[in-house]
């Protein structure tokens, strides 16, 4: 059974013109599914439907075989964690406290933090390489470190499914690669949107291409990324060949 299954999903902000229509996709265990498409194609909206922020106007989202909207937000947060481009405001939370937020769906109203919670937080921070910065104010981290701290929060949530909205935005190449390697190494079912097609090609097991709210192609990066598709969806000319060292497709823009 796939971790996440989206069927015939449609969503419209005003109940009329749909911004997403007829979306079908599945994410299985250990699979990294990349979502690509031009700006405004509906990537973020689709992710929002998947993590229960937006209710689809038609179709279904299933998590572990259960209809997502039949279950409580708490239930889904115990199984699915999300890393967004949304940083906590500068009220002075420390890195450790940001990561500890991941325990929220597992705790009752008056439960304190126990040794298990602290162990999970320490482990997650160590895993993303922030063990030494646990006591630092979150606001003082660099962009890459912030993104890793939010990934640590997601890990503390102990999810079976991970959703990421353009996780590598604004990061230097080194941090982009580091972060994606870490995500890949987790081996979780992962749905992530990507801006950088070469990164998507390098790390994703499969890709889904969105264009104007519709899924226009799906398959392995080698199947999906063709010069014709890039021309048709992104409106740019590109040369697609094979990466000389790794074997996945490589895109070179023709300017």
């Amino acid at each position: 059974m796939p971790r996440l299954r989206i069927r015939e999903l449609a969503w419209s902000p005003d109940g009329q013109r749909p911004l997403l229509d007829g979306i079908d996709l599945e994410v299985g265990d250990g699979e990294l599914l990349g979502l690509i498409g031009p700006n405004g194609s509906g990537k973020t909206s689709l992710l929002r439907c998947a993590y229960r922020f937006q209710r689809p106007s038609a179709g279904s989202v299933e998590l572990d075989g259960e209809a997502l909207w039949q279950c409580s937000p708490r239930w889904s947060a115990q199984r699915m964690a999300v890393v967004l481009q949304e940083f906590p405001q500068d009220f002075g939370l420390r890195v450790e406290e940001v990561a500890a937020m991941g325990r929220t769906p597992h705790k009752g109203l008056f439960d304190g933090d126990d040794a298990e919670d602290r162990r999970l937080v320490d482990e997650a921070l160590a895993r993303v390489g922030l063990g030494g910065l646990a006591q630092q104010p979150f606001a003082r981290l660099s962009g890459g470190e912030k993104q890793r701290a939010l990934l640590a929060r997601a890990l503390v949530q102990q999810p079976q499914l991970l959703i990421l909205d353009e996780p590598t935005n604004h990061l230097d190449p080194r941090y982009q690669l580091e972060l994606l390697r870490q995500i890949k190494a987790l081996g979780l079912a992962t749905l992530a949107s990507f801006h950088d097609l070469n990164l998507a090609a390098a790390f994703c097991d499969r890709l889904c291409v969105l264009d104007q709210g519709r899924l226009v192609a799906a398959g392995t990066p080698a199947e999906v990324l063709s010069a014709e598709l890039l021309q048709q969806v992104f409106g740019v000319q590109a040369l697609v060949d094979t990466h000389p060292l790794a074997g996945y497709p490589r895109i070179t823009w023709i300017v």
Partner: protein
Amino acid sequence: MSRFRLLLLGLGVLLALSCAISLGFGAAQVPLERVLAILGQHLFGIVPEAAVSLGQDSIVWQLRAPRVLLGALVGAGLALVGTALQAVTRNPLADPHLLGVSSGAAFGAVVVVLYLGEFAGLLSLPLAAFAGALASMLLVLAIASRSGRLESDRLLLAGVAVSFVMMAASNLLLYLGNPHAASSVLFWMLGGLGLACWELLWLPALCLALALAVLLGLGRALNALMAGEQSAVSLGLEPRRVRLLVFVVASLLTGVLVSLSGAIGFVGLMLPHVARFLVGAEHRRVLPVAALLGALFLVWVDVAARTWLAPQDLPIGIVTAAIGGVFFVALLRRR
């Protein structure tokens, strides 16, 4: 013991000492050993060695003790509400009076003073103020939650709008009414602890305890809400429900406090920042610290209000606003 527990304990002890010491200050100074003798007699039944005059006894025990306690409760409550509101609105400038509660309460008070008179004895002013607070809070919530949604921006704007309308209404009544009544309302609008009496203390104490319990229970949720709407949802919360609960708790507590002490500004805006400076933004830690700091702050500000112009009683809201303004200028210049 962790540093945090030590801090809580230290602030608690400091607050108890401050309450006791502050009883000596006022238009008539009472020496500390007399104050302690009077407290010992009333609290523990210890018969004092030297006789204490009846006048001093009634000043300290009947007038000042409830006033000091009310000050502590109001300070704690306003700081608590401010902390929670700043988190759920994600706005570091949110404060208890922003929700229109204070101006609603002021309107209620004006109506009583000008038209109804003492319809329920001692309780008439607080009752009317509370009714006004409740009415304007419901109005703000109704305006902000159109189409079933409750967003923080809309809520703040609705609060500001209702505040202005309520203030206009009070000012109109005052302008048309007799000038003598205006001055008695003015004192109340500027805030003061002069209404304090033993019979009415249980109410703010109970509300404060309940609000503290609810907000501490929501501690994790408040942290998550600070991280943003979508993050909060992804952590399994329903932000609208949490926010509604916090607003209702905040409005009720502010309504009760304001009805007894008038509109005391800046406590709810300033003390949360001081508390965060001390212990960071984790709400399960910052809420109790903010409450203790607020209590401590208002107890001493009231001492200033009692003594600066003695025997005149300076409205405490003037002192808090002056301190708050200077505090913010200092904060701005440091950044």
